[in-house]
């Protein structure tokens, strides 16, 4: 279930909190596991076995490889293959088969059809969590978790199960085994959760309408400024959707006594693509760095090899976001930019911050347009529109309609604003007022989203 749903807000969460704090300390982990599995099952009942199976493989393999046993490496590789293989099977099989068909088999007049399976909810996240953990145990970077309940809580803890942040076991193991809950943590958690909810419901979902409008009208029909405005709206939508979700996850974690790592640090304030990727979806970036880039040799190798390593990381990063060519293209787009920056102008950008900001906003918008549109003809017509300076449906009305919202979106993603909010939220009156007001507004917008008066019968 989504955090921004009534099932979660006025059923699951209050019940979970009551149960949790009434429960004796000893049983709380088990309770959280049960709650998490229920949470998962509600959203995707058919995939619970897949989640449990992947978790079980990780559990068994990590236990085995934690000691110096015979066939340790083989078990490790098998485990890893099973976990990442199931991710590949569910998410990418159809995509790869279609590539195979169109590139090779079609020329011989044959084709393979596969039954496509709906990917289990959140598989990209929990498969990464599990495989990362297995690698850490294998390499001795972390202790193995012997207690199956504690282990399952680490994998499936509901605040971060579906959309991250991707947590490493060593970051959270202390809290799983023994956590002290401070009032200040609960205070932060409550505010953080509502802040995330508001980001998602009040900003992401409302600005999304503008981008949808551009898509509906057609990329070739709108004017060039309208196309840019649409992509800007989409960029805000992505940021507030995802960082709002991370805020909610971190806030919920706090409410249950956990500290989940940060995932976003005002990425749109960056002055280079390099910096952007240190601030956007941080836990995913470090997963790729930790488990792909470094094992391949990282930067401590020849320049050619380093280029290849970086390329591999970014092609995979792209692919991780979805099984389609545009995501791979988007990954490669960032690979090229990062290479260019590293070799040519990163220094310059660091010195000329204003240029850096403008440059980063510009490339981010282009990046998100590639990310947004999955079919190539449409993507091409969007990019063509963005760079052809041509007319079409004018954006004046939409600009006038959305300018306050756009302004709010622009202000709230800056570092200055975040720092200010952090400072203010230390004051009780602010925290209290902001929480109540944002909650009320969010519920109003959530209710309205379900409001579809059935009026067509009147035509």
């Amino acid at each position, binding site marked *: 279930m989504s955090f921004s749903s009534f099932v979660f807000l006025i059923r699951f969460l209050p*019940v979970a*909190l009551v149960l949790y704090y009434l429960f004796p300390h000893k049983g709380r982990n088990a309770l959280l596991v049960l709650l998490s599995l229920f949470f998962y099952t509600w959203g995707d009942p058919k995939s619970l076995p897949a989640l449990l199976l992947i978790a079980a493989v990780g559990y068994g393999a990590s236990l085995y490889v934690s000691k110096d046993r015979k066939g340790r490496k083989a078990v490790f590789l098998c485990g890893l293959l099973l976990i990442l293989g199931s991710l590949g099977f569910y998410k990418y099989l159809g995509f790869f088969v279609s590539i195979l068909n169109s590139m090779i088999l079609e020329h011989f007049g044959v084709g393979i059809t596969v039954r496509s399976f709906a990917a289990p909810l959140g598989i990209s996240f929990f498969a990464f969590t599990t495989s990362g953990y297995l690698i850490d145990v294998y390499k001795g970077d972390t202790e193995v978790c012997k207690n199956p309940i504690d282990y399952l809580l680490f994998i499936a803890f509901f605040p971060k199960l579906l959309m991250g942040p991707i947590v490493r076991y060593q970051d959270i193991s202390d809290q799983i085994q023994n956590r002290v809950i401070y009032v200040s943590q609960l205070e932060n958690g409550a505010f953080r959760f509502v802040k995330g909810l508001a980001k998602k419901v009040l900003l992401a979902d409302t600005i999304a309408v503008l981008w949808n*409008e551009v898509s509906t009208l057609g990329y070739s029909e*709108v004017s060039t400024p309208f196309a840019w405005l649409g992509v800007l709206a989409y960029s805000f939508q992505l940021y507030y959707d995802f960082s709002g979700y991370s805020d909610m996850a971190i806030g919920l974690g706090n409410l249950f006594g956990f500290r989940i790592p940060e995932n976003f640090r005002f990425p749109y304030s960056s002055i280079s693509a390099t910096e952007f990727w240190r601030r956007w979806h941080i836990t995913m970036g470090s997963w790729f760095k930790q488990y792909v880039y470094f094992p391949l040799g990282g930067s401590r190798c020849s320049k050619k090899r380093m280029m290849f390593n970086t390329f591999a990381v970014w092609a995979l990063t792209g692919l991780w976001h979805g099984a389609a060519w545009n995501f791979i293209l988007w990954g490669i787009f960032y690979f090229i930019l990062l290479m260019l920056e590293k070799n040519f102008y990163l220094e310059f950008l660091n010195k000329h911050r204003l240029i850096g900001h403008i440059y980063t906003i510009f490339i981010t918008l282009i990046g998100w347009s590639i990310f947004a549109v999955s079919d190539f003809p449409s993507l091409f017509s969007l990019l063509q529109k963005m760079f052809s300076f041509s007319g079409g449906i004018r954006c004046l*009305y939409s600009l006038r309609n959305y300018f306050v919202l756009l302004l709010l979106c622009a202000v709230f993603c800056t570092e200055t604003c975040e720092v200010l909010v952090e400072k203010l939220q230390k004051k009780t009156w602010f925290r209290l007022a902001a929480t109540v007001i944002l909650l009320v507004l969010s519920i109003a917008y959530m*209710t309205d989203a379900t409001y579809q008066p059935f009026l067509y019968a009147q035509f």
Partner: protein
Amino acid sequence: MIKRIPTFVVLFLCLFAMMILSIVLPKQTYSENENKYLASLPDFSLRSFGNSSFETKYSTYLSDQLPGRGTWISAKSVAETFLLKTENNGIAYGKDGYMFPKFQSYDEDTYRDNLESIHDLTQVASSPVRLLVVPSAYTVLTDYVPDSLPCIDEKAALADGISVLNGVQIVDTWSALQDAQHDYIYYRTDHHWTTYGAYLAYLEYCEEADLEPVKVDFSTAGTATGFLGTSYSKCKRVRTIADTISYFPFDATLTFDGKTYPSIYDFTKLTTRDKYAMFLYGNHAESVVESGDGNGKRGSLLIIKDSYADSVIPFLSNNYATITCIDPRYYLGSIQELAKGDYDDILLLLGFENLSSEGTWVKLSF
């Protein structure tokens, strides 16, 4: 004092209170405003849980029965005003209290299929067929529409579309309506045209069909005030100017579902939200308006229509003794067979949005 109130307790109490209220408060069954039956608590079974249908229904149940649902929705409309939005839920706010549903896309295939079906119908019809397409308010009320509202160009799309039709006489109402755009020809809060707008279209039709139009004086028309239409229902704008419905008490009877009514107006609808349904008692598969023979009247008209026609038909009852009204969305018989019948004229009257987006008009091929 305020320093001692913990935020997490307040948050918890808010959510907990909402939960309790949503459990104990009595459930509503019907929402007049939304024109739908509200969801009730779904039955649980492992099967329905396993295929997610229980979860979906339960979510709908929760949001449908949310305590203070109407208030929350209005609150959102107010919040949008504070954001200086010029629209809400797809309804753009124009000048002078006008509300315009944004019409941004239609399915080309559906549109073409509908037009071809109209063409098919003309081929088999035994009487002359005329087509009157009602433009959406935003294309006509150009002085009231917000500047450069991004909507499709209906006029061009229609001109494109009807170029493939032959054998159909087009009743063009566009310029007549546009010339009168300051004369309250569309409702402010509803997508329909007003009785005056309908009358202007009626005049155009009479000219095309060579009929003597009835002369009416709008200052003596009956009126019903306080009409808040479909656009209002969607956007719930805070300061809304309610509409007034005009009607003329022509002498005609209405028959549908095997029952005959002495008037073509259903005045009981004026106490409900959907006041426009007073015309011809709302939507029916088939209804017949009879007004007796008279001076220079033609015998019969077959009108295949949507609800825009409901406010035109009263005027037409002065020119035809019998008007058979068919709403293809509900009519289950063969419309082609009907069109082969013995009518003096056949009229297709529908809104452009309907013609371009609703699949039901392909029934004209059958």
